[in-house]
Structures are given as C-alpha cells and as structure tokens.
C-alpha cells in the first residue's frame, strides 16, 4: 500500500514536474511564429526555444531570412499578424515602432522574465519594447605578423596609428592596399560615416526634433578620417560590403580592417582561410579619432519583440518560449556564435573586439524614428565626396537637403 502510494507520489511529482515545465512555456496549444535574420546567434535562440516549447505549442515555426527588414512591417500589419515575434536590432525596432506594430512587454517580463538581466530590457518611454540577447559592433581586425614585419608591435589604437601602419605596409611593398572597410554605396557607406561622426561626438539631429544637424566641423573631421583611410583601401571599395571584405581578409590580402564583430567568428574559424591568416588575426577595439576616447563604432543589439496584432495567449506563449531559450545552458552550447548579453557567456578571442569597443564607450546606433532616412541620404550622397568629385562642405549640404526632402515626404518635417 505504502509502496503504491510512493509510486503514485513519484508519478505525481513527475507529472507536476512536466506541468510546471509546460507552465514555463506559457499557455499551451498556441501558434508560435518567429521571424528573424539568418545568422548563427538567432538560429541558436529560435532553435532552443523550439526544442523547449515546440511540444507544448500547437504550431511552432521559425522563419529566418536575409531580408527580414524589408518584409517585417508588411508581415505584422494585418490582424492577425503573419508572425507572433520578430527578432530585431536597434534600427529595425524603430522601424516597427514607427508603425505601432509591436506591443509593450512589461507584464510579460514580470511574469516570465525573472531571470532576465536589467540591461537586456530595451525601454522606450518607460515601456519595455524588446528583450536583447546579444551585442554587435564594428571593430578593428589586425594581422599582427604583417605589422611586425614593418616594425609595429602594438595594435593600432587610433585612426592615426592605422594610417601610420598602412603607410608602412605599403612602403615596405608588402601590400598596395592593406586596408579593408565596408564602403559599398548605400547603407554601408552611410554606416561608416556614422562610426566616425559619433566618435567625433557628433549628433545627427537637433535635440528633440527631426531637423538635421550634420553640416558641421565634426562631420567634416569624420569625412577627412574616412578619406585618409580609404586612400589605403582597394580602388573597388565602393562596391565592397561584408562578404567581399571578409573574403579579402581570409585570402590574406589585407592587414588592417574595420569590419563587423559578427564576422569575427567566421574569420577566425578554420574554414575559408589559411593557418597563416587565422593564427595572426587579432580582433581589437575600434579605433579612436583626434585624440578622443570614443571608439569609432556603433553598438547594436539584437533582441525579441512581440507583435501587437496577435491574440494575447499567442503573444504570451511566444514570449515564454523565446525567453526560455535565454539561459546559461544555451550559451554554453553556442558560446562563440555571438557576444551574448546572457549569464554564462565566456568571451573568447572572437569576442575581444566587440568587448573592447563596448568598454571603450562607443555610442549606440541612434534609435530615433527618422534615422533610416538620414542613413539613406548619407548612403546616397557621400559617394561624390569619396570619388573626389565634390567638396566635403557641398556633400554635407547635399546630405541635409536630401534628408529634408524625404523627411518632409514621410511627414517628419513640415
């Protein structure tokens, strides 16, 4: 009898265990539909969430694409929305919030987020709008063997150091174009300007308004820095983005680079390159400018959001499932896939660059509703200056004029 009771009690405990497990996944038998960009960290988060809560859900789909940014607004607009969650970054959160397509997460965080750290919570105007899980930024990539050949033993700290090193490498006849940067016309070249402008302490807009504020000394200084650097970049640099610069680096054709931290792991792994390149590549903080202390980088986070136009139960189940993946166990399995903002993360060599950049006090990519328009204007207009067909002053005036024209059309300026 007592044995029977014991077994029953054991069975009950098991049952309760599984019940409480399911409770960690929120309401059962819901439809969970996640949209995100296709890179390893997001694969890890969404994959783990599906392992944890896929059984409790009626449906659990994960859609990872390269052009998420282009479809997310359209996908969340109908009611019910196509996806219950979109995994976003700084700029894409603004893009969704501009159209009011994501919901505040305050109550969900209270219910399921007791293990989340305060710095993971993205708050806008007091409301939690996203939960971040990883960080990213641009930073310096260095080939220490090449620098040693020209007698430089220290990793460059500033743009000036980089230029000295690049010049030495060119003069020693080792490489004609030792430097790589993502300068492709459009988004990339605009982003390069952002790095240096923020490092010079620039602000994109007059405070609290959508009025542009980039035609100034700081912007001129930023353009000078960029011009001085691309002097040592391959002449094709205006058509090169991450894929091209990473390939150039892995082919051993560059010795100094400003590239994304999320490419660090791919550069250092044993695929696509030679032992000579990978063992000598050092990832370091982004360079500073003009004796300042701010690294020339923009800090990015990636995090989860929950769609507004879905039933509350689906929203709750989606949130619970995704948060259930943000654990030390998941990090332990996927440590080198990202710079995790989660417990248990052990920064390896691939994380050194981003970590140094964050500690150095780099600025976050601005989260204002009209930054995309400014970024576009920069991407289109800076080219004339970089090709040498226009003065820096004229280019900056053009950027402001182009921005004002599109901001008026989008309703941000009168």
């Amino acid at each position: 009898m007592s044995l029977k009771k014991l077994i029953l009690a054991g069975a009950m405990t098991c049952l309760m265990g599984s019940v409480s497990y399911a409770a960690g996944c929120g309401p059962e038998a819901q439809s969970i539909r996640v949209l995100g960009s296709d890179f390893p960290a997001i694969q890890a988060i969404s994959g783990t969430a599906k392992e944890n809560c896929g059984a409790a859900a009626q449906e659990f789909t994960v859609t990872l694409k390269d052009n998420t940014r282009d479809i997310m607004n359209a996908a969340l607009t109908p009611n019910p929305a196509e996806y219950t969650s979109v995994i976003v970054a700084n700029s894409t959160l603004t893009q969704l919030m501009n159209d009011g397509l994501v919901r505040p997460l305050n109550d969900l965080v209270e219910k399921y987020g007791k293990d989340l750290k305060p710095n993971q919570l993205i708050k806008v105007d007091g409301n939690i709008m996203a939960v971040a899980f990883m960080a990213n930024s641009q930073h310096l990539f260095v080939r220490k063997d090449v620098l040693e050949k020209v007698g430089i033993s220290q990793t460059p700290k500033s743009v000036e150091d980089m230029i000295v090193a690049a010049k030495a490498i060119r003069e020693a006849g080792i490489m004609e174009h030792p430097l790589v940067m993502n300068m492709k016309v459009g988004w990339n070249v605009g982003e390069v300007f952002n790095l240096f402008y923020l490092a010079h302490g620039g602000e994109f807009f007059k405070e609290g308004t959508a009025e542009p504020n980039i035609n100034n000394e700081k912007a001129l200084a930023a353009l000078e820095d960029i011009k001085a650097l691309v002097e040592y970049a391959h002449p094709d640099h205006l058509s090169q983005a991450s894929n091209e610069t990473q390939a150039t680096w892995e082919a051993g054709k560059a010795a100094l680079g400003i590239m994304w931290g999320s490419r660090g792991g791919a550069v250092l792994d044993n695929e696509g390159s030679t032992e000579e390149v990978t063992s000598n590549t050092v990832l370091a903080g982004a360079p500073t400018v003009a004796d300042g202390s701010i690294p020339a980088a923009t800090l990015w986070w990636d995090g989860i959001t929950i769609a507004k136009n879905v039933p509350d139960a689906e929203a709750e189940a989606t949130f619970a499932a995704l948060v259930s993946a943000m654990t030390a166990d998941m990090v332990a399995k996927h440590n080198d896939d990202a710079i995790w903002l989660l417990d248990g993360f052990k920064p390896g060599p691939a994380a050194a660059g981003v970590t140094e950049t964050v500690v150095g006090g780099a600025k976050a990519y601005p989260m204002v509703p009209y930054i995309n328009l400014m970024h576009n204007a920069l991407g289109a207009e800076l080219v004339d200056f970089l090709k040498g067909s226009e003065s820096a002053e004229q280019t900056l005036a053009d950027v402001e004029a182009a921005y004002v024209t599109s901001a008026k059309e989008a309703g941000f300026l009168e």
Partner: protein
Amino acid sequence: MTPTLSAMVLFIALPIISVFIQSLHIQHQQVIVVSESCGPFGCTKTTSVDTEATEKLRSEQPLGQFNGFNTYTNRSHLAFAEIVEAWNSMPDTRTFLDRVFNLPFYKALAFTLTYTLVVTPLVILLGLAIAVGVNALPKIIRGPSIFVSLLPFLVTPLVGSLILFWMVDGDGIIGATLQLIFDDPSLSLKASTPLMWIMLMVYGVWHTLPFSFITFYAGLQTVPQNTLEAAMIDGASKWQAMTYVVVPHLMPLVYFVTLMLLMDNFRVFEPIVSFSAQAHAQSLSWIIFNDLREAGNPLFGSAGATSMMTIIGVVILLTPVLIRTWREFNRRVK
C-alpha cells in the same frame, strides 16, 4: 472593341491613374513625442512616433496629405528651386551644369539618356550586320550560329551582369588581364565613372543584340528575291543591293525594333544593381527602386512621381518614331 477597351482600361489606364494620384500625396505629419530609451548600452534621450495620434490622422485621410505637384518639383525630382538658385548664384555655365547634374534626378536622367541613345543605334546596326552575316552562311552551320547568337538573350539579366561583374573584378579574368596589359595593378573598372558607364553600355549591347538580330533575320527571309536579282542584273553592287533593296524592305521592322529598344533602354535597371554601379551611374528606374526599398519609410509619393516622369520620358522619346510609323502606315493603306 469593348473587351479590348475594358482590358486596356483595367490593366493599363487604372494602374497609371492610381500611381499618379499617389504621386500627389505625401504622408501625414507624424506626431513625435520626446522620450527616453534604455538598453544594454545605457539610456539616451530620444524621440518616438505617437502611433495612436498618427493612426487617427491616417484613418481620417487614408491617402495622406494632398501635396499637389510639390513632389514633382522638390529637390529629388525636377528641383526647380535649386536650379533657379544655381542659375542666379553660379559664376559660369560650367559650374551651373555641375550643380544641376549633382541633383539626383538630373544625374540619373543624364545616364539614362546617354545609355538609351548609345545602346539603341548600336544594337540596331550590329543586329542588322549579324543577321546579314548569318543569312549568308551555308545552310548547315546556320542553325547552330543562330542558337549561339541568341545565347546572351537567354541568360537572365541579373545573372548575366553578375557574371560580367565578377569577370571585371581585379581578381577576375578580364580585370586581371587589363591590369597586366596596362601594367597597372590598381587599374579598376569599378572605380572609374567613365569606365563603369562604358561597361554598362557594353553589357546593354551584348544583352539586347539577339533581339534585334533575330527580328532582322526573320525579316531577311521575306526580302523579294526577284527585286534583288533585278538589282543585280542592273549592275548593283552587294552594298548597293543592301542599301537600296534590303534596308528599305526592312524599314517597318527597324521602326518596331527602335520602339522596343527605346522603351527597354530607358528603363535600364538590373545591370546597375548587379554591377553595384550606383556610385557611378544611376537611372530613373533605380531611383524608383531606391525610394521604395526603404522598408521603414517607403516614399510612395516620390516613387510615383518618378514613375510618371519615366512614362512621360518614354512618350517623348517614342513620339518621332510613332509619327514616322503612322505616316508609313497611312501611305501604305492608301
């Protein structure tokens, strides 16, 4: 008559009208609130859109604010104000023109027109030459040579231009060969505006040549043999037979090919994207694409305005050819 007319209204007129109406509107004034945003990297003061207030405005007037023709005349398009200002403030015509071609619409128009006016005649002349050449080949190798000549047309434009793009890369076969020939390791087709324009036009000719070739080749099969023989008997040389018999016979086809090529070339787009040529060459279609691509704030009004002006541009280009065709047609009917 009625079915044709209603189909034309449904599939041609209505979409154009809707684009036109769209181009007269801009977005509502967004209601902006100042707020604070916090994240992993600290807190900053920022602004955000008051979506409820903005939504209310939108539901009252779903089309947006009426803006008249202001989008057409703003800096992204015809830029009247900027041109007047440049005219008044610039010391000489050269700097004035520099300023004008620094404006996005005129910059794109310059490339689009150059591309159209260079590629169209080249494609017609070369297409005719190849057609005559292939027609003169012995029957047995004619089939295979037609097939080979058609190949560029069969390759998807995006793929064709990407292949050429990789070939002219500094590490590609054409790029590396050119560097070797000119003994200049930093020579780059992608870094120079004139070379980039030439490359785009060479690609354009290569890609559309088969269209004019196959049309003319078909036309050559209908050239009346007795007229040709009569010309030969009268002592006409091959060249004279060509210019006085064959070409006049093919004239209606030449008009047709010209019409098609003008329309197509004026809308040049794919090669610019796949060559990543935006730094050096932009076309009207590329501007439309660029306005719509910004997913967060697509500029529908701007895209609509540029579309309308592209249509007007095509109509202007086609008018002389259409008038010729119309006269020709009337002459024949009489």
